[in-house]
């Protein structure tokens, strides 16, 4: 499976944020989308998730040589600030989600099995979500995306404000679910991108550019990325 972005453009108030982007993402890989603050990472995600209308461009999935348009079901989006319906308990939210999506979810498991999978404690499962901590809300959001198994999983800086333990758990989780889908992970933390991702993609000047990942702790590699991001015109 391949996910292709074709001729994607978006501008705000006359400023072109995304310039005719053409890119192809491949199944089974975690892509680290790196860009400076304001480079357009969130705009890029919002366009894919149809939260905002792109000026031009199309998103397609190619399976066994057949291309089709990306539908809403193909995309899962985990936001940096997790949002969950405050008036439901974790268990109720999970039940509601499975009810709505039962036709699409394969091998449905029990709620407790799901909670175990993302390590949400037994005593927290029947608490109202308004009383969940940031990390727990984040796990809840991830869990739904794991169950829905979208072909494309977008993560907008999801680990930035998590504590070390949860952050490590989430990294493991992402690695364990990466096969069979395309994961795009936006961050501005270089170390995290290098640590977790199989491919590094830079978003600068409104364009996407893949960076050859030669060796993980190669100093030259880091310098190359920083150089690319600080080039004139991106100040």
């Amino acid at each position: 499976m391949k996910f292709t972005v074709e001729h994607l453009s978006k501008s705000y108030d006359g400023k072109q944020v995304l310039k005719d982007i053409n890119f192809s993402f491949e199944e089974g890989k975690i892509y680290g989308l790196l860009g400076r603050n304001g480079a357009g990472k969130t705009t890029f995600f919002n366009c894919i998730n149809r939260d905002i209308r792109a000026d031009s461009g199309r998103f397609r999935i190619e399976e066994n040589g057949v291309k089709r348009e990306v539908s809403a079901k193909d995309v899962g989006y985990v936001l940096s600030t997790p949002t969950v319906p405050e008036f439901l308990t974790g268990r109720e939210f999970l039940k509601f989600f499975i009810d709505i999506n039962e036709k699409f979810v394969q091998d449905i498991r029990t709620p407790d099995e799901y909670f175990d999978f993302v390590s949400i404690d037994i005593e927290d499962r029947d608490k109202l979500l308004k009383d969940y901590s940031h990390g727990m809300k984040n796990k809840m959001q991830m869990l739904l995306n794991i169950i829905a198994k979208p072909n494309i999983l977008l993560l907008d800086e999801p680990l930035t404000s998590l504590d070390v333990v949860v952050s490590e758990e989430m990294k493991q989780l992402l690695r364990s679910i990466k096969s069979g889908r395309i994961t795009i992970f936006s961050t501005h933390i270089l170390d995290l991108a290098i640590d977790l991702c199989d491919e590094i993609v830079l978003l600068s000047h409104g364009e996407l550019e893949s960076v050859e990942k030669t060796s993980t702790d190669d100093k030259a590699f880091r310098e190359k990325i920083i150089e690319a991001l600080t080039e004139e015109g991106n100040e």
Partner: protein
Amino acid sequence: MNKEEISRTFRISYSLKNTYRVNTILYSLKQIPLIKKLLPAKIYGVKELKIFANILSAMWEVASVFIWKLLYFVTLVCGVGAIYSRLPSDEVFLHVFLMLTIIGFILNTHLFNPTRDKYYAIILLRMDAKGYTLTDYFYRLLKDIIGFLPMTLIFGLLNKVPLWICFIIPFSVVAGKIFYSAISLVNYEKRGKAYNENKLSIPVWIAVLLLLVITYGMPAIGYVIPEKAVITLLIAFIPLGLLGIRKIITFGEYRQVNQEILAQMLLQLDSAKNINKKSAEKMISKDRKISSAKKGFEYLNELFMKRHRKILWQSTRIQAIVILILVIIAVIFVKISSGISEETYGLMIQNMPYFVFIMYAINRGMGFTKALFMNCDHSLLTYSFFKQPNCILRLFAIRLREIIKVNLLPATVLGGGLSVIFYMIGGSGKLFECILVFLSVISLSVFFSVHYLTIYYLLQPYNPSTEVKSGTYFIIQFITYVVSFIMIYIKLPVFIFGILCVAFCVIYCVVACILVYRFAPKTFRLRN
């Protein structure tokens, strides 16, 4: 500080205040539908618009000198003062004015008011704290004198206060303020705690309350402070003020004082931001026994309704009980005063449009949609499964049913009660009209319920931090209010009114549902 420094500080601080006032004007222009489309994207850089906003800002600066003072005199001093008509007007005027002035020393010092202007200038831009504070302070005092003078002359003379006193009053008000602030500075030097007029201690609030009782309570029982005493005090403020000026000018720790009160301001602002979210979360019932045996969207809806029972059902239940009591009183009244004439009946039956406003006022639609957004949709709208067109419409239909049900309870009691009363007065010959009365109240209730949910789905006015960001939404709300209000003054025979109501309600519901089914999958989104 020499003259040049003072004028430089003044110019900088004024232009700072003016800059963000100008930007606020431009920002507000951008919020108005239609107009915002005509404006260029980079609105803050367009010279002509900036000039226009600057003119408005300057006009406001001049006008505000007088407007607040005028309102102060018209309402608090003379407006309330006019109640005490048995006492001589000059004595009441001087009594109320003096007392309010003393309250003003405490609540409106200027010097200890943590404002955004001060925060930007002193903290962010690191301007010289003393220079800035004093320039700002004396400018405000000058504005006080200029603003007060015409008002004390006009309202003082109207109340037969001697001319020379009217002339002296503005100066003594300002002098008194200075003296009170000077004492607060001395107090700071001794105890190290800065006075913050927006965060007063409980004893000070009690003192203010007592002063208020003296201000308005004393004249109510026929007493005022003797005129001579008032005048002596007003005159005495002037030398005290001159004494205070010395302290205010020589005080050296303005940065510390400002940092302390500005930090408190920021804390208050932060908690104000969280209040919205917290108050929404408080609406959720903590009852652990709440559950639902339903599935899917009905499951979501039932849990939402059960956990928000307090704000939805409880309030309409209270409405229904109050209406029922009023109906019973009216029924008893009609029973015992057997002679209610045909004429009274005619008058009552003509005034049915009044109930448009009543139905507007008791409808819980707005609270319902707000709770929906705050505690449910603002989060679920970030999930793609929730945004599928069929899901949006399925849930819309469920919610429509619920919102109508919640509002129908008081409407049924009101409509039923009204038709019973009309039947008792009008007799069996008017049976059809009585049924129409019932139907029109019910259709009004349904109309407002549909209306609120429709505009919520079509405009989705909230942004993720639950602020209303849609100008169109505001305008529609305003029009809804105005139209409902105007109906109070319209007289229509019940026959025409009833038929119009039912027809309008049916047409509106059909159109609204068509619009929602057509557009909501696109419009029901989070605002970025």
